């Protein structure tokens, strides 16, 4: 039963090799979807291109449906998966800062790497900026420590926090995503086209 490497079905030595293979697929899909273009990415914030919204939410939905379906079929134990921990104010403040960085720089870290790979100089500069940002955080760590380590709720899921049935949540989430896709197409038709 999955996950395969933690359960010893695939030997641990394969971990780093699998990491490279998964990375290649990740980079390929992002680049082929147009995520190496900052002007395409920024479109989601101005309504001229909703590729980010569509790719991002389709991916999240396919993954979450797949995870819970494989758990239901007994191929994968959802309780063994790593759940990103919830540090409430770290998530909110960090997310707000990242949002400003996204619209200012036009990339997020993963997409900037794809753009670096095809030679975009603005992306190389952006990655340099990320490393400076990490350096600033590390040097001023005592200042950030209270929100970095505080307000910790554990590795909780929405099922734990809100007490909702995950299957119902996924169903509602799917409907919200479909409505968002329809609305985004309507908005895109009305917004002035941008060629890039």
């Amino acid at each position, binding site marked *: 039963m999955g*996950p*395969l490497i933690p359960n010893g079905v695939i030997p641990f030595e394969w*971990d780093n090799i*699998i*990491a*490279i293979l998964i*990375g*290649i*697929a990740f*980079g*390929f899909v992002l680049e*082929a*979807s147009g995520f*190496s273009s900052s002007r395409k990415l920024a479109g989601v914030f*101005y309504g001229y291109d*909703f*590729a980010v919204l*569509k*790719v*991002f939410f*389709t991916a999240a939905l*396919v993954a*979450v449906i*797949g995870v819970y379906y494989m758990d239901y079929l007994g191929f994968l134990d959802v309780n063994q998966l*790593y759940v*990103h921990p919830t*540090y409430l104010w*770290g*998530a909110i403040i*960090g*997310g*707000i*800062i*990242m*949002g*400003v*960085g996204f619209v*200012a720089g*036009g*990339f997020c*870290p993963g997409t900037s*790497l*794809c*753009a670096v*790979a095809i*030679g975009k*100089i603005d*992306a190389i500069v*952006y990655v340099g900026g*990320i*490393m*400076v*940002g*990490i*350096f*600033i955080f*590390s040097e001023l*760590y*005592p200042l950030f420590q209270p929100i*970095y380590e505080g307000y910790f709720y554990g590795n909780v899921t929405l099922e734990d926090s809100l007490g909702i049935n995950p299957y119902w949540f996924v169903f509602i989430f799917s409907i919200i995503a479909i409505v968002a896709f329809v609305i985004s197409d309507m908005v895109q038709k009305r917004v002035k086209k941008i060629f890039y």
Partner: protein
Amino acid sequence: MKKELKQKSKHIYWNPYYGGFLLGILILFTFYLTGRGLGASGAMKSSVVSIIESVAPTHAEESSYYSKFITEDESPMKNWLVFETLGVLIGAFISGGLSGRIGWRIQHSPKITSKRRLVFAVIGGVLFGLGAQIARGCTSGAALSGMAVLSTGGFITMLAIFGSAYATAYFFRKNWI
């Protein structure tokens, strides 16, 4: 005629639902194999830690943040996310190469200069790097991989990123539209 076709194909990308579907399958597959999701900013953190460790080893050991990621016998670069990120560079290079999108250039709106684009790229990068440390992950590691397992923190980070980007988009509009 042939040249025109070549010029055009540079901007032909996959259908976003197709790309999203494959990305979702990849995340599912990653969880199935490794029990964890994808990431992107983690490798950059490892790079910063290893640079500081080699430039100023005592400073790195004394710092309460760098020291979390330094172990006696292994380099911080020997990390799953670093290998994955090498793969991302290779995969994007293959995709870009197949579509003829490889080349040195600064992409920006015709309404702004290259210099302005680069200045805002640095500012954006610094903010994203800082925010990704505070939130313990970026759009890949926290938001996307978090949402795949219904992590509460992942959803909060996702809402905060998109909420703040939409809220501040007005102030950066000259750079994009």
